[in-house]
């Protein structure tokens, strides 16, 4: 079985907005990368002395309708304000930078039926939604798209989306329009049996799901992609104590799993997005409450704070002792 990760190299970097850079990646051995399914993402591993990172980024694919197959992968990275993975990319990535890439993973995908499609992108979430728009246009599916952003200048790929689908794209400039879009109205306007696909901040995803619920949509008619389940702006530095008594500091930009791995602890992990449960570890004691961000543990298990998903969850502050 080939290794999961391959060596890739940054081919080109292009600034899309003040805070968003587009980066194209090719394999280091010059062999072509395969086309990816709309909505797919890649795990990127990168870093150096001042931090190593694993992050998920959507594969955007070709931008125009007529564009040929591309033998490279395109991602777009929005810079956060803190010293995080995205900040690292913005500071260090340029043509020639080496990274490790996983195969394309596509849990977020268009349904195989022919029903109408509603796409909702919020901010950098456009990176998962744009390839879906392109796929719908190419395959002549009934599609409508809402693209929400702080203001038009800060939004990537607005022109590309409009060039692909014209009037089927609604751009919601929150500054100009003075607030969030009305998702109840939007969903109510859709043809029966529409499936909605949402990628963006948690508030947008939750808002869409709640609107769908109010309108009596079956839950499976809203599909969503969450990125960055492991990181929140309010994260604090915490300390992990192992069975042997070793204290391992975990910076706000890193997960407990990453810190334990860097310290050489024996950990198990697979998905790194709080779903597979392989990194679940027993908690011996914890100073504060744990912010559980995984989808594996049940609500009761989360309340008991006896186990933690190392890949994404963390105590709100202070120290946590683990059976590891």
């Amino acid at each position: 079985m080939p290794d999961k990760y391959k060596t890739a190299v940054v081919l080109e970097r292009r600034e899309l907005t003040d805070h968003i850079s587009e980066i194209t990646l090719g394999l280091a051995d010059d062999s072509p990368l395969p086309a990816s399914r709309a909505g797919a993402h890649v795990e990127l591993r990168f870093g150096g002395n001042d931090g190593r990172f694993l992050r998920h980024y959507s594969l955007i694919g070709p931008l125009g309708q007529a564009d040929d197959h591309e033998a490279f992968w395109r991602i777009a990275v929005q810079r956060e304000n803190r010293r995080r993975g995205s900040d690292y990319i913005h500071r260090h990535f340029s043509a020639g930078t080496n990274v490790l890439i996983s195969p394309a993973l596509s849990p977020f995908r268009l349904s195989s039926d022919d029903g109408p499609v509603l796409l909702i992108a919020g901010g950098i979430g456009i990176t998962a939604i744009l390839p879906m728009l392109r796929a719908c246009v190419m395959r002549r599916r009934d599609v409508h798209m809402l693209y929400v952003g702080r203001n038009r200048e800060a939004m990537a790929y607005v022109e590309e989306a409009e060039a692909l689908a014209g009037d089927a794209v609604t751009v919601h400039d929150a500054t100009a329009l003075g607030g969030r879009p009305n998702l109840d109205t939007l969903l109510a306007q859709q043809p029966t049996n529409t499936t909605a696909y949402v990628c963006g901040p948690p508030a947008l995803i939750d808002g869409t799901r709640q609107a769908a619920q109010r309108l009596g949509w079956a839950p499976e008619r809203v599909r969503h992609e969450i990125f960055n389940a492991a990181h929140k702006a309010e994260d604090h530095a915490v300390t992990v104590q192992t069975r042997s008594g070793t204290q391992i500091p975990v910076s706000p930009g890193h997960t407990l799993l990453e810190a334990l791995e860097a310290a050489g602890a024996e950990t198990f992990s697979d998905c790194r997005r709080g779903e597979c449960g392989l990194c679940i570890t027993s908690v011996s004691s914890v100073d504060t409450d744990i912010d559980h961000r995984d989808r594996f543990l049940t609500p009761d298990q989360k309340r008991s704070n006896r186990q933690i998903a190392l890949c994404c969850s963390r105590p709100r502050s202070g120290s946590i002792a683990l059976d590891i």
Partner: protein
Amino acid sequence: MTHASQAIPLNDEAIFDAMPMEEGGQFANHATPLIRNCWYVCARRDEVGRTPISRRLLDTDVVMYRTQSGQPVAMHNRCPHRAFPLVKGRVEGDRLVCGYHGMEFEPDGLCAHLPAVSHVPANACVQTYPIADRGPLTWIWMGDPNLADEALIPELPWLASSEWGTVTGDFHIKADYVSMHENLIDQTHFPFLHPGTVGTPEYARASMEASTEGNQVAITRRLDNAPPPGIYGKPADIMHKNVDRTSEARFASPAVHTAHAKIFDTQPDPGKPSVYGYYITHCFTPESNHSIHYWWFNSRDYRIDDTDTDDFLRDASTQAYYEDVEALEWIMDVVLSDKEAQQFELSFAPDKPGLMARRIMHRLAMAERG
């Protein structure tokens, strides 16, 4: 050489060099070099006799026979002169005689007689392997002979005990020993691959604990007040009852997996036991990275001389293990023949015991490469 305490300049090379360190440890698979420093079963004890037999073990053809005093001998099945398979020769006294030019080899591999030459050149010798009998099995060490401590041969006392009744069988399997180990320590496949024998729906919800002890991995499960699985319940004639059960499955070494199960009947019928014990012993030896020799034993502590019970357990075990054999061969075929790029394994929480064993196997295999 960069001094460890010296700050390394941050450039792409430094960034990339740092990456593999993040891996928390790798897992053995079918492509991992075979672990050689280990006692593996090479034969049933009664297969090795005065007529030489050969078997391919860890990619090496081995010939085995017994001396006049009954000591087992294992040699490379290849005459150092012209590669004639020594198994095609004959045993004379304690010596193995090559069937091509009559070179005679002592049990220690040294040539004692070379008919066409008046003296025996010192370099005329054949590789031998440490070999030892234990109970019904004969074990071989294909690694560094200086490390072949017989105390490391796994203790399987129930196989030789008169207090246990044992049935046994064997298979040659076109699959790798790593996936065999993972299959044996993974019990979440039971209800799907073995619905008629060892898998019951209730068992899927039994609590499980996994732990590593040195280079072993053990999982223990307990399930109370549920019907027994057919393979245990039918021979004990307790299928109509709800019983408690405990089980331990153990990755004991790269060569052996053992399982120990107990069934507790809290209200036994008159004259019947309240506890039924089983040891299941799986011994397997890689023939190559993609095939194994497999010997299994099902031991019980009741009705130990009953031939009907023997027949039932032999048939049910053979069926259950055949289901595993088929599955592993299908998987091996997919893994080796599917050329679709970028395949990798997904793992979930219940796969942890298997991954623990595979991590140990990877560590052992890498340690032998220095």
